[in-house]
């Protein structure tokens, strides 16, 4: 169901109340001596004794953001947004209301009401103009209501535009190959570090192949690269992988991490989103085709509003806005206003963290505690999203109170379908089925309606459940029906966002509470990121187009930096800014600020080409360094902040799984269109069907195509630190926990991959040693060492007998040993760590 107009209207019925920020500016005239005496005698002692414990800068915890130990704090008031005291106006003085003890929620001091004569003194004092000599400014820290200084805020390093500077001079000659190297080398030299030896060729191609495609290099690729002595061998191999379809499947996943991509709502009810996969495929294609990153962002925020070439292009741009629709949602929320505000919050959070590296959602309930972002900035953005219709689909059910339509992309859009065409007869049958189910639901409802009150009371819940049950059934059938046109062709439906007819501005919600609307703020952008005096307001419609252009702009100080840092982090193992999703005050500072600016500006100069950015990093000597330990360097920089070597990196969950399938020869690179989630159907039955499909036979497609249902992440991925699909995550954990070891040794998928690997090896020609070497080349891109051969021999001397003793048939023992050996290769550290 679409949110109806009254629901929205209710959000925007704001009380027209001005914030009395300027109250203290009034009357700075000297206080009359008798008034001063009155304050000192009758007011100050009460404030000190009764209020300061919780409401002063010195209090261990300032309650309600209200400080009463300065004139400024007292008049400004706390988080409620109401002035503490307005000179001469009792009705606009919240502390007056509080000391009267009339409102149950607001009785101060909380334990005992003040004596009547003290209350009378406060009345007199406020009426005489609340003379107050306590001029000292409120301390910014300590919880008092902070006034954000935007000019000061703009001085934060990340809020200033990146500037390209000439690479620094370096002392070591001959090492640096690119500008990046000069920045890195200068950092090393300044800290008394020296670069280590370059990576050898097999190590390097393994690194490049995994980084660009998420798959190991084939033995032939390794051989060719090792033999290629030409000066541009490295560039050629990089380009080969960049041009491969596998590149898009690898790099799209990095973006899906920060886009918190998933195919279900997560949270309490976990409703499936059968059309989410279109957004996933859009991201894959965007990376594959090296879509300029600024356009990529614009499409995700406002693709529906951008110009398009043809129907297909338009469909793709609408699918892009799925970014805003796929977030986690609490579908069972009975309060639609709350549901919508939570959804908007999720959109602001995902957009700001992924694209800007800012945690703007922190300003929902109060001004941002650390960054110069005011609550009004948040509600200016909220207005933009509230003026847009987020279409996420789903059908009504027992636990789903929030549904919407989807966007029909149309036949001419020529979009892929997850479902096969059905015959028009099948369609007609489905339609009949729906009509019957719908009729049954109506009958149940009218039957209960026609009961007399007494009967209905008696039937109670069971009557309710009957209606609910028949309705749910009808909705489930309708969901199936909606998938097709009359002739049985599947419809191309998409999640996404469209502008509403009439845009609306949002009130500030005090403490984020929908029941406490305050001042309405015009839709707009984030003040601190705009030049001083630049208009923040939007020009037309919801404002999403303005927002898109503002984010994907060369003038935005964050956008290019954040993405350059993300790419650097994925290739080098640690970010120049170590907190990739937070460039705010609480994020960490860049280790190489000038390098970051160099990358960001070059990125923009190169037309926001991600592939060019990747290539420039990979062509650096820093990227091509070995990962060897060096005691002297290690003593100075154990965390390798200065990149004196390449970090040893663990593969992502997807790469581990894909590599196991690839090595064993079982990887299917051509999955059918769509997703198992799209084929599963709606509601609880859908989840069950999905589970049946996934557990009946392990899928052998690349991991990016596995169904990503929130909180039901495939074990193979979750065990290797697949991130929480409800949260933006630009830097995955890489843990080493025993559940991974148990998985690799005991799980049937791991054992299955070992069997397939063994079968592949067994089929090869040649002597046992040749086969063993072939297995090594496939798994590690190198030959075994002597020590390893000894260990393998030892294994072979013992294992077959032991396997026989534990019941493996005699004729299967050698094969079992081969499988166990192959499993050992895939289970070893080298398989999942890149050097």
């Amino acid at each position, binding site marked *: 169901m679409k949110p109806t107009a009254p629901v929205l209207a209710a959000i925007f019925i704001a009380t027209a109340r001005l914030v009395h920020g300027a109250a203290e500016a009034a009357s700075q005239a000297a206080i009359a001596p008798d008034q001063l005496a009155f304050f000192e005698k009758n007011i100050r002692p009460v404030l000190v004794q009764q209020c300061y414990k919780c409401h002063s800068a010195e209090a261990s915890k300032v309650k309600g953001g209200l400080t009463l130990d300065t004139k400024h704090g007292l008049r400004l008031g706390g988080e409620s947004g109401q002035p503490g005291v307005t000179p001469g106006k009792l009705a606009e003085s919240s502390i007056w209301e509080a000391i009267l003890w009339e409102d149950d929620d607001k009785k101060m001091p909380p334990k005992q009401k003040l004596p009547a004569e003290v209350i009378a003194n406060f009345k007199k004092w406020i009426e005489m103009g609340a003379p107050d000599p306590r001029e000292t400014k409120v301390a910014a820290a300590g919880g008092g209501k902070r006034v954000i200084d935007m000019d000061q805020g703009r001085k934060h390093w990340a809020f200033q535009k990146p500037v390209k500077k000439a690479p620094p001079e370096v002392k070591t000659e001959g090492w640096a190959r690119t500008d990046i190297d000069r920045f890195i080398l200068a950092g090393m030299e300044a800290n008394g570090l020296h670069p280590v030896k370059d990576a050898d060729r097999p190590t390097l191609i393994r690194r490049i192949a995994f980084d660009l495609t998420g798959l190991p290099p084939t033995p032939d690729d390794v051989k060719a690269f090792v033999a290629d002595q030409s000066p541009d061998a490295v560039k050629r191999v990089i380009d080969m992988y960049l041009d491969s379809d596998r590149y898009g499947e690898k790099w799209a996943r990095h973006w899906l991490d920060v886009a918190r991509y998933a195919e279900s709502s*997560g*949270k*309490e*009810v976990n409703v499936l989103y059968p059309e989410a996969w279109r957004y996933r495929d859009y991201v894959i294609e965007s990376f594959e085709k090296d879509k300029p990153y600024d356009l990529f962002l614009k499409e995700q925020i406002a693709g529906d509003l951008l110009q398009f070439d043809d129907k297909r292009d338009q469909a793709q741009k609408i699918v892009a806005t799925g970014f805003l629709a796929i977030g986690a949602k*609490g579908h*069972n929320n009975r309060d639609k206003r709350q549901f919508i505000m939570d959804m908007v919050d999720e959109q602001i959070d995902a957009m700001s963290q992924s694209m800007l590296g800012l*945690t703007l959602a*922190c300003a929902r309930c109060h001004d941002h505690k650390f960054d110069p972002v005011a609550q009004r900035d948040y509600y200016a953005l909220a207005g933009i999203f509230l003026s847009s219709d987020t279409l996420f689909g789903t059908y009504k059910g*027992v*636990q789903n109170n929030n549904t919407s339509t989807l966007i029909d992309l149309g036949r001419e859009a020529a979009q892929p379908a997850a479902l096969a065409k059905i015959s028009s007869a099948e369609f007609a049958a489905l339609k009949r089925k729906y009509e019957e189910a719908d009729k049954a639901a109506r009958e149940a409802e009218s039957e209960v309606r026609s009961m007399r009150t007494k009967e209905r*009371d*008696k039937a*109670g*819940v*069971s009557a309710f459940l009957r209606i609910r049950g028949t309705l749910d059934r009808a909705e489930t059938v309708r969901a199936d029906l909606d998938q097709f046109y009359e002739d049985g062709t599947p419809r191309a439906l998409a999640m996404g966002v469209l502008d509403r007819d009439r845009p609306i501005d949002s009130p500030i919600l005090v403490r984020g509470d929908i029941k406490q609307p305050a001042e309405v703020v015009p839709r707009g952008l984030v003040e601190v990121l705009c030049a001083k005096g630049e208009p923040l307001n939007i020009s037309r419609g919801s404002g999403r187009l303005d927002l898109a252009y503002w984010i994907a702009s060369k003038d935005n100080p964050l956008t290019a930096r954040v993405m350059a840092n993300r790419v650097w982090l994925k290739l080098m193992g640690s970010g120049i800014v170590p*907190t990739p*999703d937070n460039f705010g*005050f*609480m994020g960490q500072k860049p280790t190489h600020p000038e390098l970051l600016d160099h990358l960001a500006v070059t990125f923009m100069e190169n037309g926001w080409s991600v592939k060019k950015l990747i290539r420039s990093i990979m062509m650096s000597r820093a990227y091509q360094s070995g*990962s*060897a*330990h060096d005691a002297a360097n*290690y003593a100075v920089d154990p965390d390798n902040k200065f990149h004196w070597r390449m970090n*040893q990196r663990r593969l992502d969950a997807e790469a581990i799984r894909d590599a196991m399938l690839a090595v064993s020869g079982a990887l299917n690179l051509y999955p059918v269109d769509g997703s198992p989630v799209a084929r599963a159907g709606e509601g*609880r039955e859908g*989840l*069950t069907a*999905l*589970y049946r499909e996934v557990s009946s036979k392990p899928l052998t497609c690349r991991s990016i195509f596995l169904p990503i249902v929130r*909180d*039901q992440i495939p*074990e193979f991925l979750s065990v290797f630190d697949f991130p*929480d699909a409800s*949260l933006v995550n630009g830097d995955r*954990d*890489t*843990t*080493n*926990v*025993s*559940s991974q070891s148990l*998985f690799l*040794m005991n799980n049937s998928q791991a*054992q299955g991959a070992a069997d397939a690997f063994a079968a592949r090896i067994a089929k090869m020609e040649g002597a046992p040693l040749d086969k063993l070497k072939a297995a090594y080349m496939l798994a590690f891109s190198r030959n075994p*060492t002597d*020590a*390893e051969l*000894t*260990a393998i021999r*030892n*294994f072979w001397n*013992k*294992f077959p007998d032991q*396997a026989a*003793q*534990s019941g493996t048939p005699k004729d299967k023992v050698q094969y079992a040993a081969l499988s*166990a050996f192959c499993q*050992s290769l895939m*289970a070893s*550290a080298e398989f999942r760590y890149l050097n």
Partner: protein
Amino acid sequence: MNTPSFNRRDFLKTTSNGFGYLAFAALAREQALRAAAEPAGPLAPKTPPLPQRAKHVIFLCMQGGPSHVDTFDYKPKLAADSGKAAPSVAGRYGQTKLMASPWKFGRHGRSGLYISELFPELAKHADELCILNSMATDLPAHPQAFSQLHTGTTQFVRPSLGAWTLYGLGTMNQNLPGFITLNPPGNATRTYGSAFLPAIYQGTKVGGPALPGGGGGNIRRYAGMEQASVSNIKNNRYSTDAQRTQLDLVQALNRSRMSLDGGVSPEVEGVIESYELAFRMQAEVPKVMDLGKESAATKALYGIDGQNTGAFARQCLMARKFVEAGVRFIEVTHGPWDHHFNLKASLERNCDAIDKPVAGLLTDLKQRGLLKDTLVIWGGEFGRTPHSQGDDGRDHNNKGFTMWMAGGGVKGGMNYGITDDYGYEALYNKMHVHDWHATVLHLLGLDHERLTYRYAGRDFRLTDVYGTVAKEIVA
């Protein structure tokens, strides 16, 4: 990630060079033993900042919202006014009337706590129980309240109580998971998830539904624990000897990789250690989960052979064994307790199913001297209304409900907080879920305001900006 001291790494580096694989395997075992003896890393036991009254938690989680006015919150006025129109409360399904509890309450123990006849066995432990009659939670909807009970929030994805506990305290047996959840309901990953805390702090699931989704009553969910175990804990192919041989090969390859890397690689070392731990867990987990060696008397104590009590009895007994083995936090889920109708029959059956097992657990813990260190908690996400729903049911009530705690530093034989005359709403000493979280952490020696984790630029707490410790109940 494990970061061992430089000395040990140095030692390994020099000793592993030039050795054959046998020497290495022996070394790996020695190292593993050492790691077990001196645990380090994120799960090592930590000394809490406050006095530690409880070292373990067993949370008996009653999913669905058990009725407090029929069990632990005695309301004589509700009985007196039964049948009268419910004051100021509009029911969701028509007119509502107050409904007396169909069960009698009696006073028990020296403390004289009121407990209904639904819990005859548990009532014998009245003097151990600290009954929290004034619980409150934000919303009367199952999923939100269940989420708040576990993570403090109805709305966001946040770490669970068990994950916070593990993060704050580590665990005492490095061969077992530190946070185990037995039989969690479907679609409640959040209740044992770690959210933004490192993955190592999430709960390890044992049992639970085979199907994703969950929601209503799922019979398979409560069908006992014979088959249930930790994921991938058992190797179905090879004997332990053969597996050790295979593992020795894996470790030899790992060691070789490390020497190719110049002998120093915390990553590879971490892999080596995790394999040894996994191998030990493989032996240890089934041992702890094997109830076969328990005496007949112990089994009888829990009611393991009872048709109605058997499933929960096994889980309670397993919880004790986990505590004994050093597991920090164990949650056991039972349900559903969502008695909108058929209250009489269903509540009676549910109470009977857990009465003896829970009483047995308390007795057993006490006999073994474990109760003083173990905080046992009982309760669900909310309670139920004093008025009826239909003829024989009660609706959700989030404004006042009851939980109880025992052992681990709480005062026994007391009621904390009071609801109004009918049991609608907590009036005195109201204990919101945030306060309860603060109190549980306090009993574990953790300060809920200082147990923080930095994520997305700010320090998060289990209790967000709320929570007051109920000091009155601390022994």
